[in-house]
């Protein structure tokens, strides 16, 4: 098994286990998509995926930031800013239904959140502020900025505006958020693995000094990664706001940064930086999304949500710990036989015996 597959194995096992529990509790309908009256795909699992999209976008950006040994705590606040800008722009316009208005609002929100992300990156890379401190500033201030944008109100977009399609619509029967998530995952995978960006940021995260001495422009790469993370958070905010039809500066995307970090860790990317796994993060997000439904489906009250989440995290962390794995797998491992790689004479004798 390749190291990559090894990293993904446990998250996949956990996810399959959760799905199995749900199927046992509610039947096979849980996983099989149904076609709604309006021709859209529905069903429990599709809904989980659709609801998980904002978290996924944020977690993907977070994965790249964590790969550089950083962390971005401001993503929840940036989510709120993205949502606030889009909703306020649409509300302020004369025609909420016009495509031009909606596109302007989306573009404006994405540009501003990208700039905010880049600002985080500059603080980390150029000023040498610790990532947790640099992004903490905007984690706190960001919601204030969102409140200023909305004037302390919760701007509501009319249900007829095409903006709501972003969160509620469907294309070729598949919900638009899922399309966006798939596109974002593909784009980030291509950006990091088809160029050298992935390797260089793993290098910067794995050993900053060695990377500097090898001549890598680590500052530029760091800024770029925080920019992408901000952009992802902004996009997540747009989808969330579109789904609700409103932007709540105080509660939109609240604590989403913690779920995102959780998803990254479940997906096998170490908080110490270096190797990162976008696909692992994706599975981590789906695990978190599925978990919330599982609690309801097995008949527990929703108060169990946080405790159950903690238990799953605990189990995943244990399974990823090499020490624990060795201990639990010990009785199942055969004593390794003296295999022979090269046909050295003495070893050939050994084999003859």
């Amino acid at each position, binding site marked *: 098994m390749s190291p990559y597959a090894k990293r993904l194995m446990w998250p996949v096992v956990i996810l399959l286990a959760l799905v199995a529990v749900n199927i046992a509790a509610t039947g096979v309908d849980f996983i099989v998509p149904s076609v709604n009256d309006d021709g859209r795909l529905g069903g429990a699992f599709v809904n989980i995926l659709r609801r998980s999209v904002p978290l996924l976008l944020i977690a993907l950006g977070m994965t790249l930031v964590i790969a550089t040994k950083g962390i971005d705590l401001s993503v929840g606040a940036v989510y709120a800013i993205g949502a606030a800008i889009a909703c306020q722009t649409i509300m302020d316009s004369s025609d909420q239904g016009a495509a031009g208005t909606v596109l302007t609002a989306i573009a404006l929100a994405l540009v501003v959140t990208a700039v905010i992300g880049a600002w985080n990156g500059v603080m980390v890379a150029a000023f040498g502020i610790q990532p947790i401190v640099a992004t903490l500033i905007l984690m706190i201030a960001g919601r204030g900025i969102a409140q200023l944008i909305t004037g302390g109100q919760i701007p509501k977009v009319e249900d007829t505006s095409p903006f709501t399609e972003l969160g509620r619509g469907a294309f070729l029967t598949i919900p638009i958020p899922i399309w966006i998530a798939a596109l974002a995952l593909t784009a980030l995978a291509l950006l990091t693995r088809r160029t*050298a960006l992935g390797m260089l940021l793993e290098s910067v995260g794995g050993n900053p000094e060695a990377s500097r*001495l090898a*001549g890598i422009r680590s500052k530029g790469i760091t800024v770029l990664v925080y920019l992408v993370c901000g952009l992802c958070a902004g996009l997540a905010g747009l989808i969330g706001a579109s789904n609700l039809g409103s932007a709540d500066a105080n509660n939109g995307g609240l604590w989403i940064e913690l779920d995102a970090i959780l998803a990254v860790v479940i997906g096998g990317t170490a908080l110490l930086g270096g190797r990162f796994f976008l696909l692992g993060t994706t599975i981590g997000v789906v695990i978190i999304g599925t978990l919330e439904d599982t609690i309801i489906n097995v008949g527990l009250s929703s108060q169990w949500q946080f405790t159950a989440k903690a238990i799953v995290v605990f189990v995943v962390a244990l399974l990823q710990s090499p020490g624990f794995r060795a201990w639990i797998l010990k009785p199942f491992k055969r004593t390794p036989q003296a295999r022979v790689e090269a046909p050295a004479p003495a070893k050939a004798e050994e084999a003859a015996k």
Partner: protein
Amino acid sequence: MSDAALVRMTGIVKDFTGVRALDGVDFTLRPGEIHAVMGENGAGKSTLIKVLTGVHGHDAGEILLDGEPVRFSSPKAAQAAGISTVYQEVNLTDNLSVAENLLAGREPRLGPFINFRAMRRRAKELLDDIGIDLNVAAPLSSYSIAMQQLVAIARAVDIEAKVLILDEPTSSLDRDEVEVLLGVMRRLAAKGTAMVFISHFLDQVYEISDRMTVLRNGRLVGEWATADLGQNELIGHMLGREAAALEQIERAASAHRVEDEEPLLQAEGLGRKGSIAPYDLTIRRGEVVGLAGLLGSGRTETARLIAGADRADSGTLRFEGRKVGGHNPRTAAARGIAFCPENRKTEGLVGDLTVAENMILAMQASRGWARSIPVARRDKLVASFIEKLGIRPADPDMPVKNLSGGNQQKVLLARWMLIEPKLLILDEPTRGIDVGAKADIQRLVAELSADGMSVLFVSAELDEVTRLSDRIAVLRDRELISVLQDEADMTSERIVDTIVAGGRES
């Protein structure tokens, strides 16, 4: 020294998944002897030690301690039976006092409390026993690594050690410190403690050891009294070649004299406060310039300024006749200056990345992230360098942290050879690596310079510097004191004389 064996290991076999690390190895240790275990990296030295100290169990064979068969399940059990180990890195607590470190876990008590006075007295006695004088109340961190090493030894000896295992204890010590350590070892031997000594420094091994056991590829080559085994023979046994490979490198570079070549690099008054006094240095095309001096003399600092790893605060640097501005590792690489830093693990390699990724890192960095090296080209380049430098295992996808020191160094060299630099700066490229890899790297330096590449070669080993260099810059107390030019001056003695003389003048 009596003939009765204290430790007798016979027919030891140890398998790791798919690899036989030890194959029927015998090892005998007699009371009061200093026994060197020699071999290249991967020969099985550390595995043998780990079997003896209970870190690994063995798959076949027998261990007798004082004639009794034993099998240790943990290092603790081995320690209880009188086998103590002092590792390369000091495993003590920096911010505790010397006395606390010496007696941690065995503090003299007064009821429930620690009797600090008794503890200091006992610690003092222990140190007196091995003949060193320290303030036992001072924090351990206030002493040099060498002294810390000695404290570790004193601690090991106090735990009733019959057998003391010293795994590369001298690798971070300077000359004087090594002398102190060897003195302590002699004193312990005289008291009857048997010692197993592992070191890459052949001089030290010859100076201190009574006997040698040589391993190669997990098998026993033989056991000799040190006096009966010449250095060349020893290296031959370790490498499995009759003639010592090191001898053949003998100044391939000296065939071409480079005095009339134009200067590639000129440093004028280049310096950095608190690091290295301003110095002048010229490097010509195809020339190997050695930097020699004691530990802390400013060798590394000199090289780092030229490499752009540190910023100079005085003087100018000219490269190919043009003044260099905005010097940093990236612009240096773009000009053709490559730098292999002293510390492979912390400054050189990215441990989690693969051999291939580490190799292409500098080349990729110069292209920027957007222009990835095409996979086919990359695979070809990596395969050719693995082949050319003899990197083992020859697996481009293995994380580089799993390689031995010598192979890691070769990966680092390959990284810079890939960008075909005009000047290659090597800071201690052969430290802590086995004799075979050392010979490979020295041969490579000679070849590269013969092909016209300039090399700035920093090494603590004078033999190596004199063998490879066309000229040698000698440093002392963070100052470049002299540049030796003449062929006749390329000797260790001459360098030592220069260092001593340089001290007298100032």
